[in-house]
């Protein structure tokens, strides 16, 4: 059964201190060519029946994301892709 994947990211204008902390740690790994890191959240939803993108959008808007500070995208992913969907 396909799943719905919701990606939630802080809006670009909202400071992401977590991402900054990660970016600041990269030079310690010898990585010096990363300009910035932003951290978000990925949520996988499995419906009991057919996946419903509109319903997923409603869930994302009401609960999964806070539209004041976050943007989200909703997409359909085949079940066997979810383990390694690294688009």
């Amino acid at each position: 059964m396909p799943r719905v994947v919701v990606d939630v990211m802080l809006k670009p204008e909202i400071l992401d201190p977590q991402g900054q902390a990660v970016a600041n740690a990269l030079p310690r790994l010898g990585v010096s060519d990363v300009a910035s890191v932003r951290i978000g959240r990925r949520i996988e939803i499995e419906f009991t029946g057919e996946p419903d993108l509109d319903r997923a959008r409603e869930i994302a808007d009401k609960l999964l994301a806070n539209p004041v500070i976050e943007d989200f995208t909703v997409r359909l992913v085949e079940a066997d892709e979810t383990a390694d969907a690294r688009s």
Partner: protein
Amino acid sequence: MTARVGVVTFPGSLDDGDAARAVRIAGAEPVRLWHGDPDLHGVDAVVLPGGFSYGDYLRCGAIARFAPVMGSIVDAARGGLPVLGICNGFQILCEAHLLPGALTRNQHLHFRNRDQVLRIEAVGTAWTNAFQPGQEVLIPVKNGEGCYVADPATLDRLEAEGRVVARYVGGNPNGSQRDIAAITNEAGNVVGIMPHPEHAVEALTGPSLDGLGFFTSVLKHLVGAPA
């Protein structure tokens, strides 16, 4: 008749006990409300206490917003019921859209726990009418996600309408925009505050007694309010 002030307990609330104690010290009767019970038991005002409701899962306050008790509180608040959200309670009020903006990770990523000076700027609210405009108070702050953010238009509107209730003085503990520590809604009955007035009501445990003013304010407000 003694005013009855509800204090909600969510799974993960920490400061409901102290909030109820503050209500009692201020001279009102605390009424414990339960997150799963939509009945407000006829209370005259409500405090949403600090803590980590629902483990702060997803976002602070995001799940508490959908608790059965919150539906009743949102409706009653729109009808004028005084509601004070402290720390996690402030986060819940923002998530419930009773207050604008949002509270995000402290800019420096550290949990901050210290006694904090605040300047009270709006004294027309249900929860701050016992203060003088510009009065400085000392109240504990303790949060990891207390950085208040809103878009510039919202911040400008809050300032223009006198809805910034309190600002941090002597250092901003979490990076909140424009040093905002507390705000109110248009009607002035709903206030969200990041620091903890309920921890500053007794000499034995608090850095001052300044927090008591928030709780005596609501009693003054209720006496003056039409029945």
